[in-house]
């Protein structure tokens, strides 16, 4: 773990060096201005929300893959999960713009079953849906890997001791699968944290992420030291997250 952090410093010489010259002003600006607080909060809350959503969506899917599906179906599902992951990132974001816009597939489906239109295009809800969609495969795969390693004999033992199936799942499978879920959450959380394309494309006004401010400071304001200081924020958050994940045994499940 310490190795990882030192490595972080080793690869970052350009940015940290510049920050050291102008030092602390940039960090004070981040700490003192409420605008940056709300942006950082929004990014972190969204990353957490997406992670929880993906965990909930992925678990039953991974459970089916690992414990119910035949070998052949397992391979097919595995490929089916990986394929969208490799289909262009922009393409998948764009597809959701098409689905969520007010004359898109979502509203058409809602109206054809007699429901009112949901105008969630270009909002935080849209970002939540798109992020959950894009990173879902990253949650399914480690969860599946962890579930597959739970020996059937443990479940039989639980049954012999009188546990109902659901109880066995809750008390035996869930704790054993947790490292896998945490491993997946590293991806979903960090990828959401560092993203700025999706907020630009599907978020509305006032949905900036940390990455958007960083991007604006490099591209438009050309304040690279400040951008670098801001970029340290997600890296620092991830370092803390990885520490916690390591405690939960997620690294063995990667």
């Amino acid at each position: 773990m310490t190795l990882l952090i030192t490595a972080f410093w080793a690869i970052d010489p350009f940015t940290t060096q510049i920050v050291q010259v102008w030092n602390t002003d940039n960090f004070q600006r981040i700490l003192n201005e409420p605008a940056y607080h709300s942006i950082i909060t929004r990014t972190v809350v969204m990353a957490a929300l997406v992670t929880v959503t993906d965990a909930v969506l992925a678990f039953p899917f991974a459970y089916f893959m690992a414990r119910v599906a035949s070998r052949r179906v397992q391979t097919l599902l595995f490929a089916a999960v990986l394929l969208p992951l490799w289909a262009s990132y922009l393409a998948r974001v764009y597809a959701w713009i098409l689905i969520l816009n007010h004359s898109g597939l979502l509203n058409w489906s809602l109206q054809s079953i007699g429901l009112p239109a949901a105008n969630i295009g270009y909002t935080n809800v849209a970002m939540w849906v798109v992020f959950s969609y894009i990173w879902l495969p990253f949650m399914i795969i480690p969860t599946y890997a962890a579930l597959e390693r739970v020996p059937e004999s443990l479940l039989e033992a639980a049954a012999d001791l009188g546990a109902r199936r659901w109880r066995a799942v809750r008390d035996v499978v869930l704790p054993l699968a947790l490292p896998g879920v945490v491993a997946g959450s590293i991806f979903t959380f960090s990828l959401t944290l560092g993203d700025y394309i999706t907020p630009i494309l599907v978020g509305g006004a006032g949905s900036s992420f940390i990455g958007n401010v960083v991007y604006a400071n490099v591209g438009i304001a050309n304040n690279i030291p400040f951008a670098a200081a801001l970029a340290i924020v997600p890296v620092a958050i991830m370092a803390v997250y990885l520490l916690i994940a390591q405690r939960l045994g997620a690294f063995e499940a990667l």
Partner: protein
Amino acid sequence: MEGFWTRMLLRLWVALILAFLFTPIVLIFVYAFNTSNIQSWPIPGFTTKWFASTWDDPDVRRALTLSLQAGLTATGLALVLGSCAAFAIHRMTWFGREVVSLLFVLPLALPGIVTGIALNAFFSFGGISLSVWTIVVGHTTFCIVVVYNNVLARLRRTQGSLIEAAMDLGANGFQVFRDITLPLISTSIVAGAMLAFALSFDEVIVTTFTAGAQNTLPLWIFGAIRLGQRLPEVNVVVSFVILVTIIPVLIAARLTGGGGTGRVPAAR
């Protein structure tokens, strides 16, 4: 085993998730044939006219050329550097080996924006103007990782005994490499190259910081979606990019028996 109803519910869940995963992708292909230039559902009819007009668009052509140049060059560089690195890490023990092996994988773990800024700062302070070469450098950072991982994984699985046997039979270093090592690892090298190209062809973030005023295909798409312009052409280009990124991955999966493609976190 799970009860009947539990299994049914799980099946239903899996079907829903699969629909969730694939509907958007299929939808783009349908929209590419949309007769109207307004993107609404259901589409009024099918046409192939956008394919021709996209192909004739000079902006798209230029972006495609740049993407191909950058992608192929970065893949080529990554092939040489990545497989050499894998050999160095696998074959020899030297001081700092573990640190270096970690440094190789780091660009994938770091958010793309951090890599992008680092490179951008490096180029601007070094007085290097942004060109196709700066894009190539940016892409090579993450392409190396993919090649390196694939080749290293294969090297770890090959048996040293084969090489020892060849040497016992009098083969010199070069002959061993040509007749034993290379054939054994060749598919992993090709698979790594395919994955690297697919990654490069689709990369947005690092490219934004290293491209300057030029457009690669993803940057063109990004700009067009952002401004909401030329969406019929976007549909066509995006469908094309999906195919170009998925086909190499399918080939790579074939060559490595599924390994490798499963553990490539997004370098975006």
